[in-house]
């Protein structure tokens, strides 16, 4: 039993819903009690979907448990089939139904329905949402293609040349409630098009079951979101010989590598140099970005986006990555190895308080995380950009804002750098606050941040008296010392405070005044 105040991922059947809702002509009968219908709002509210998820919940009640719940399941399957006429029917159960063991999937197969039935067994007490999505996509693809695969088609990656046509690829993995999938596929389509590569199909987003039957027609699978599509891609590789890409094209370097990998796997010569069609490299190089260099950044998210963010931060923006982690156990190994290269230890956890603690301890100047880190960062007064699911409604913007490809790199530059600039402007405004032109309330562009800052300075006080309790008896901040500390930009203030206290203890001072602050500064500069 695990105490959970908040969870990064929902249960696995929500992952199954993501696949079903992403597609057309698929229906999902879910053996579940009525409260589980809350999951519909994730799609209709966060994604602003105009359609209800294609899900029929059996909504059994306690009084049904004594009787024939299997009959109830069958009635719901029959009704859903008649009403929605799906071309593929997913049947599964949520946590509660798993315990009563009606085996809805097996029941469905005995009903003589003229539709492929995918029996989903998603262990609710050990697995989570992304795993559920991945497994569902895999079971669906496998269920639809299993008969084809027997023929054991020999795959020739260069057959497109022999047949005198353009190479064809599948884009696999984009789904609802993913991060910016809708826009990523537009961007990737556009880029591949520039290299004369055709899209065979995109799935699961907007695909139909009959589209999935065309999967083997492709020369290559592009695994855009490994969390969702890797299992499926490797099954296709084993059964149809179709290889798949391992590079996720987020960031300049990764997009280049991705294009190289695609060409290599297609045995396609790339006549022209890869043209970097993004402003990120120059923006990053321009003198205005001087102040970005060496910024301390903390990264937390799903595996794919966290890993991509680390590379961009380090190689493309010149940041220092001071922490990295993921909530995804499935991606833990990959994130650990990235962390190791950065000389860090990866944080693998589903506990947001642990993440918050890690953020605090590494005192970053920018947090890249999920919607939860946005809240944590706000509480800590640190700028933040969202790079990964779980998301809020405002993380599904109206404008075109991919993460992948060249345009994705532009979007990332803007969304990461803006919160930092805001922070810097806040600081400048703070510095000039006492000039007569400035009156309070001038900081209109980031109202909440400025208010936060005020709160923070109160916090500084509180901190001095309470939080560092172990030194409380030893160290006293004089009024003057406090005033000096308050002049330091809020995003480094905490770090300076800690260093100064550490220095004071080493130096045996009991009182900290402005001189102690300057002494400490010199002390740490020398090191």
């Amino acid at each position: 039993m695990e105490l959970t105040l908040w969870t990064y991922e929902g249960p696995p059947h929500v992952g199954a819903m993501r696949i079903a809702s992403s597609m057309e002509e698929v229906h999902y009968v879910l053996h579940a009690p009525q409260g589980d219908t809350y999951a519909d709002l994730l799609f209709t509210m966060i994604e602003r979907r105009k359609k209800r998820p294609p899900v029929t919940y059996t909504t059994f009640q306690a009084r049904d448990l004594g009787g024939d719940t299997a009959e109830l399941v069958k009635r719901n399957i029959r009704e859903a089939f008649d009403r929605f006429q799906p071309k593929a029917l997913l049947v599964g159960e949520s946590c509660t139904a798993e315990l009563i063991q009606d085996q809805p999937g097996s029941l469905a197969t005995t009903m003589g329905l003229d539709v492929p039935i995918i029996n989903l067994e998603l262990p609710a007490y050990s697995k989570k949402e992304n795993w559920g999505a991945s497994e569902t996509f895999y079971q669906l693809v496998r269920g639809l293609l299993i008969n084809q695969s027997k023929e054991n088609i020999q795959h020739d990656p260069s057959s497109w040349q022999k047949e005198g046509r353009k190479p064809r690829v599948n884009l696999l993995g984009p789904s609802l409630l993913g991060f910016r999938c809708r826009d990523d596929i537009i961007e990737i389509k556009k880029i591949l098009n520039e290299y004369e590569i055709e899209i065979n199909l995109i799935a699961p987003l907007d695909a139909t079951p009959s589209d999935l039957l065309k999967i083997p027609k492709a020369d290559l699978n592009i695994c855009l979101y490994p969390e969702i599509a890797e299992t499926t891609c490797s099954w296709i590789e084993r059964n149809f010989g179709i290889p798949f890409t391992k590079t996720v094209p987020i960031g300049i370097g990764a997009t280049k590598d991705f294009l190289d990998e695609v060409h290599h796997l297609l045995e396609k010569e790339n006549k022209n140099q890869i043209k970097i069609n993004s402003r990120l490299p120059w923006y990053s190089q321009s003198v205005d970005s001087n102040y970005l260099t060496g910024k301390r950044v903390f990264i937390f998210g799903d595996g794919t986006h966290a890993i991509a963010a680390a590379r961009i931060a380090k190689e493309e923006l010149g940041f220092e990555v001071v922490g990295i982690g993921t909530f995804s156990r499935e991606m833990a190994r990959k994130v650990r190895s990235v962390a190791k290269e950065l000389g860090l230890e990866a944080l693998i956890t589903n506990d947001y308080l642990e993440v918050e603690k890690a953020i605090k301890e590494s005192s970053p100047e920018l947090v890249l995380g999920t919607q939860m880190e946005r809240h944590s960062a706000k509480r800590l007064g640190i700028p933040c950009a969202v790079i990964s699911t779980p998301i809020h409604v405002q993380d599904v913007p109206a404008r075109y804002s991919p993460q992948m490809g060249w345009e994705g790199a532009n979007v990332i530059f803007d969304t990461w750098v803006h919160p930092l600039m805001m922070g810097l402007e806040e600081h400048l405004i703070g510095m000039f606050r006492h000039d007569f032109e400035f009156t309070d309330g001038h900081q209109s562009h980031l109202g909440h941040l400025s208010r936060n800052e005020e709160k923070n300075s109160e916090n500084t006080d509180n901190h001095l008296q309470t939080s560092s309790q172990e030194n409380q008896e030893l160290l006293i901040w004089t009024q003057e010392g406090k005033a000096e500390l308050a002049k330091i930009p809020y995003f480094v203030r905490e770090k300076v405070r800690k260093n100064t206290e550490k220095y004071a203890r080493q130096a045996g001072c009991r009182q900290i005044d402005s001189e102690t602050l300057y002494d400490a500064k010199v002390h740490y500069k020398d090191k």
Partner: protein
Amino acid sequence: MSGATLLKETGPREVFCGLTSIVWLHRRMPDAFFLVVGSRTCAHLIQSAAGVMIFAEPRFGTAILEERDLAGLADAHDELERVVQNLLKRRPEIRTLFLVGSCPSEVIKLDLSRVAEKLNIALQGSVRVVNYSGSGIETTFTQGEDGALKALVPLMPESQEEQLLLVGTLANAVEDRLITLFNRLGINNVKSFPPRNSIDLPAIGSKTKVLLTQPYLTDTARELNARGAEIIEAPFPLGVEGSSLWMEAAANAFNVKDILLDEILEPLILRAKAAIKPYREKLSGKKIFLLPESQLEIPLTRFLRNECGMIPIEVGTPYLNKEIMKAELDLLPSDIRIVEGQHVENQLDRVREQKPDLVVCGMGLANPLEAEGISTKWSIELVFSPIHGIDQAADLAELFARPLYRHDLLNNKQLSYA
């Protein structure tokens, strides 16, 4: 009882479970913690219903069952005790701990009352532990509050003092206002349940007169009655009509003179009616369809029909307690179509057929209906907004008029042709 057309429907439902009540209960009692014993689904439900997570550490959480808990039951009870002890160590400000049962905990027959009992002995009164069910197989949405309050009744001290007890969570400001009005009527001893602090439980006895503020407190009312309290029969305090009858019922129970009652209420009623008028103009003659969710559907229909002139096409309700709803049903004519239970697909078919001007529904259904051109009002907003009492009647009307104004604004043909 009126002859309203009462129909029953079964089938797939689209209704929250009782766990959802935690979203407002934890705000009402800041010294209480709600610990759901359930699955990741339960945790996900509450955080999705609560929406934005602004607290560093919320006062609710889920002890998520894992495979090994399902294997051996004795262990699960011990595990739960361990989780609780850890939690309490970290959150010393907690005074009352609610162990909330869920579908999984009930299906595996985890005995939360036994765990609560053991913990109460171990904690020696420093924290009080109670339990109730918020499971989706037993309860819907607002019924969770009924369960939570019922669990507190045995802890209420005994008192033979004459008092008026308001039962059901209200917004604090609204509650203060209602108490002021009762004081003006000369009813000075007014208490609330749930209290604003879980440890300040009101006393109860045979001279307690209970006035329900919410229509979903069937079990709580029964328990209070069993402790000797008298339940005042009244409609619910929504709208001018309901709120004044509600106050009148209390006044009668306390033998307040009619003249005084009129003197106090009359000006409020006049003012509220004038305030409703512009909204009534918008709402009058418009068709409304209420999907089942909060149990507020019947009192709301009474308000929207009798005071705002709306035409109710269908009133869904998750379940119907005729006894508690009697005073409400009496105020409605016999041709109102009330449907208990739900078959969500068939019901949505009827919505599309009838083309109502406004549909009251859950958040899962709102955008899809809006996309079909049907204006909606989220039922969950009604449990969060201060809507009770005469003075709030116009605000209540405004909540329903707003989607219609919005609809006109965004579909203003004249604008595009101008």
